[in-house]
């Protein structure tokens, strides 16, 4: 277990060395935060209580999602391309002959990255949003704690989905198509474009049941205190179940991949 701690720590350090990239990311997230904030203000002025949120809650949704964007890799980034590249070039062979578990290794590395990006890319946009707009941020530290737990579960789900996508490279070799599909699905069904609560009827119900909603929609709802008590436990259970199922699927696919597939090149 100490190995995976060290992997996470080195991944954290690795992302911390890219200072300029971090600053550029913070700037972009903040600018997009403003654009989306004014868009949401326009929307919620016409339709107050859209999706069950008041305007302050809607704005909190905007700024929290900007703060989580990089950490949850909602627009890509993270380990997915790196792993695909290693599979494509055959460098994966090096990872395979190490006495370490491939999935745990990449999970640790991705969590290290996310931890850095939550701090490095998340704090400033959220603070700017809170200074410039009237947000519905909770005052209770317990709610913040619940939020962080939900973020962690969301990261697990996000990792599990992207790990599955990356592993398809063992069979497809060129991941561009799968990347595009999975990127679009993630963009929409995580709630990055619009909160999933605004979609009515069966479509909305289905959207809120899919794993992507565990990455952003659910953590933000936990922060907003939309669900408390039993509802909160339900949120955690929803995220936890998806995390377990998808991580298990990843292990299964990893087993198939390493047993069957040719390591490219060399």
């Amino acid at each position, binding site marked *: 277990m*100490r*190995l995976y701690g*060290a*992997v996470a720590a*080195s991944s954290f*350090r*690795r992302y911390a*060395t890219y200072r300029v990239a971090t600053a550029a990311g913070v700037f972009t997230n903040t600018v997009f935060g403003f654009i989306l904030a004014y868009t949401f203000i326009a929307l919620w002025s016409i339709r107050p209580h859209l999706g069950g949120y008041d305007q302050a809650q809607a704005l909190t949704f905007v700024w929290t999602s900007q703060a989580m964007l990089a950490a949850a890799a909602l627009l890509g980034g993270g380990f997915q391309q790196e792993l695909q590249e290693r599979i494509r*070039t*055959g*460098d994966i*062979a*090096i990872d*395979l*002959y*190490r*006495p*370490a578990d491939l999935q745990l290794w990449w999970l640790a590395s991705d969590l290290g990255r996310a931890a850095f990006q939550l701090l490095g890319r998340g704090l400033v946009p959220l603070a700017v949003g809170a200074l410039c707009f009237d947000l519905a941020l909770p005052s209770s530290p317990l709610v913040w704690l619940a939020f962080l737990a939900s973020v962690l579960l969301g990261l697990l789900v996000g990792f599990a989905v992207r790990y599955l996508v990356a592993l398809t490279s063992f069979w497809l070799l060129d991941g561009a198509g799968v990347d595009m599909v999975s990127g679009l699905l993630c963009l929409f069904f995580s709630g990055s474009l619009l909160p999933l609560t605004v979609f009515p009827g069966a479509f909305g119900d289905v959207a809120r049941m899919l794993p992507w909603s565990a990455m952003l929609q659910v953590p933000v709802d936990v922060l907003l205190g939309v669900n408390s008590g039993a509802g909160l436990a339900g949120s955690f259970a929803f995220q936890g179940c998806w995390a377990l199922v998808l991580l298990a699927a990843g292990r299964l696919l990893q087993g198939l991949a*390493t*047993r069957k597939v*040719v*390591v490219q090149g*060399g």
Partner: protein
Amino acid sequence: MTEAFIELDGVEKVFEVRRRSGRRLRRERCTVRAVDGISFAVPRGEMVGYIGPNGAGKSTTIKMLTGILTPSGGRLRVAGIDPSRERTRLARRIGVVFGQRTTLWWDLPLRDSYALVRRIYGIPEARYRANLERCVELLDLGALLGVPVRQLSLGQRMRGDIAAALLHDPEVLYLDEPTIGLDVVSKARVRRFLREVNSEQGTTVVLTTHDLTDIEQLCRRVMVIDHGRLVYDGGLDGLHAVGESERTLVVDLERELPPIAGVPGARTVRVDGPRQWLAFPAAASAAPIVSAVADRYPLVDLSLREPAIEDVIARMLESGEGRRSAVP
């Protein structure tokens, strides 16, 4: 011979490849026998060369030995372990260096990469320190420990990689083209280090390379693989006999003369002004040929050229090619 440490018995690896056939979008399946029934045994502590042309099946063999690929047939054991079944257990006991890939972390300083390696293999602190110190000294890594891997030159990175593969005291080290792209000085340093590791730690070494100087300087035993089959397994000197190689006697005569003829056991292969080249079997003695020439020709100077191992192997592979193409 001591007990075999690496044991292959009729090992095969067959890949199924889909290939486009004439008609559009139609693909036909065909099989490629990358490794086609190879058997050999390597005792503990030996250093063997494993050579052959590109695509001969060298890397496929190494991948099966490390457990990354599962053999399609035959029996394979390393330290009594079936590599593909117990890849992780075996991984603690082997070290691998790929000349064309790095096992180090691109963005991290060398020192941090080593710290991760230490965690991966759970190397006790004292042993880790001692091993690192020895590698740093012998491979001259001292000044590089703080440098991110992406900033290292190829030779530096290679040395860094070799050190990383040895920190956990592996019992066997697989080297896949460890000197590829290195300059003469770096090559010499890497070779010296490998010789030392082999003789002092008793590490079994399997060396794959295209640079036959590596083999000549490091290995007493060499295995030649071609088209997935072992075509030679034995001492370096034996290669010359099997490869029907020839030595060359270069003679400088007083003046230009017609090609030297009538020397038993030798034939003139080239004439350039007063200089002539005579070839004769490598196993034969040069003395009678020299005296036969000196008796009948005005000799000024002479020199003897040993066959290059490259030529020997090239000839061996070509003759194999000839035999194969003769069979329908």
